[in-house]
């Protein structure tokens, strides 16, 4: 039997768009899918990209030759740090892996300070927003099983919460680069670090970070 064909079929099925309606988290998923389209490119073709994008994925295991970098802002010690970027946020000792089933994680996190439910239009599934202090955890209904919720996004909204690498809202862009290295993708509005299916994004207000988002990338 052709295992490749089967695998392809399974993957194709898995990639179908979710059934989240006008009430779902599709507001951000639109942007995410476009961002994914943009940013997979430099990741895949980092070698010959003419853009001023970095020469390696941040999650590469080996060190890169920073001398090649055209970005003068990237300090020499960047790549070693970059190798250690984590894409799973740890909140109160609980690791939140975006894309995974939400229920076990939510149970471990305990009762949220507040919950907001956003039902899908016409259908049964809902997106949920759970708030724990300055951290907001967003879930979305699985495309095949509306009763199964998956983790979609973790937002760090104020300076009370820091990333695993110690970056928090209010820190400067330079702090970020020092800790995280060259972003996979960036604009004046944000810097994004990406790995397969996941990203951590730092939204900027001028030179300082105003919001941090761990998210799935479709």
């Amino acid at each position: 039997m052709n295992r490749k064909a089967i695998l392809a079929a399974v993957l194709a099925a898995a990639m179908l768009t979710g059934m989240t309606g006008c009430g779902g988290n599709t507001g951000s998923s639109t942007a995410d899918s476009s961002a994914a389209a943009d940013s997979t490119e430099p990741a895949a073709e980092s070698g010959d990209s003419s853009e001023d994008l970095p020469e390696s994925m941040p999650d590469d295991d080996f060190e890169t030759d920073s001398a090649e970098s055209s970005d003068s802002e990237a300090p020499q010690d960047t790549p070693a740090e970059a190798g250690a970027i984590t894409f799973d946020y740890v909140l109160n000792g609980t690791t939140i892996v975006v894309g995974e089933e939400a229920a076990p994680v939510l149970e471990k996190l305990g009762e949220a300070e507040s919950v907001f439910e956003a039902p899908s239009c016409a259908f049964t599934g809902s997106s949920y927003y759970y708030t724990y202090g300055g951290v907001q955890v967003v879930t979305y209904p699985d495309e095949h099983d509306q009763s199964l919720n998956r983790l979609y996004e973790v937002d760090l909204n104020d300076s009370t919460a820091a990333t695993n690498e110690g970056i928090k809202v209010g820190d400067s862009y330079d702090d970020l680069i020092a800790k995280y290295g060259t972003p996979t993708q960036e604009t004046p509005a944000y810097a994004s670090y990406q790995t397969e299916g996941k990203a951590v994004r730092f939204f900027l207000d001028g030179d300082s970070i105003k919001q941090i988002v761990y998210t799935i990338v479709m």
Partner: protein
Amino acid sequence: MAKNKVLIAGLAMTLTAGAVLAAYQRLVQPKYMSDVVEGNLIAGYYSSGMDHDVLFVGDCECYENFSPVTLWRNYGISSCIRGSAQQLIWQSYYLLEDTLRYEKPKVVVFNVLSMKYGEPQNEAYNRMSIEGMRWSSSKIGNIRASMTDEESALSYVFPVLRYHSRWSELTSDDFRYYFGAKPNFFSGYYLRADVKPAQNVPNPTPLTDYAFSDTCWDYLGRMMQLCAENNIQLVLIKAPSLYPFWYDEWDQQITDYAEKYHLPYVNFLNDDKLEATGIDFETDTYDGGLHLNVYGAEKLADWFGGYLKDRYDLQDRSQEPVLQAEWNEICARYDAEIERQLNNLEQYGNVKGEA
């Protein structure tokens, strides 16, 4: 002779198979009566025998947030809504085109939320927006624009190809409404009488890109042009829904566009509008701020009716017999539905009356 026999046999086989399939198709097509009632919104339009001065096109923010009954009762404005769940902008455009085949409203109101979707999204929603349309070039256009990669146009022409497996999921509704649906809506309005206050509305999650897609701008342009050609006033609105988020960056783009083309744009989320309409998210929403309930929809319609009447010279037509007859029927159903839902709420704690 032999040739004729073969022809007749071939024809007989084709016709028999066709007839059985047509009958079967009717059975397995979703009836949208007890569940996902929104699936019947689009088809409902064709059963109306009257004309409308105001046409709303858009998604749930249209068909749940404005009460046409209030427009009729308070201003004598005959209006209808052509909206469906997550209705994308090209679907709104083709529904507008389709409606213009039957009538020429004076004002077309378009809710701009769907500007955020630049690509086909979801098959289930497509079905609900498209299948209710009568066949026309607009429907074909809608199919072509809406299809996701997994869909085939053929299954819109022959829905049996899509629903053939539903034989195992048939319910009593499929037999009861075999010959037609019963009206569930009020000139395209989906009525909810329950209340769930908006609480803990989350922080908007930031986007990496706020620019609307070229496709959306293109359709908005086409909508504007179609209205201009038919001498119709196009009004852009953003309904007062707290979620999905309506970003300032998005609002600015629409504001700029409206200014550039001299289109009116009413953002009901703005504080002054919220104050003027009197929308109270403690009492006027049934799902925590996503959609308005009937009390909110009536408030919104009341204010908006005044706004439209003043600006676009809409006559009070409450004395016209044809309109009167149909609107009286709609109003009676509307009042009965509110009562039914309130009774259910009292008895079962939900509007559907589920034990």
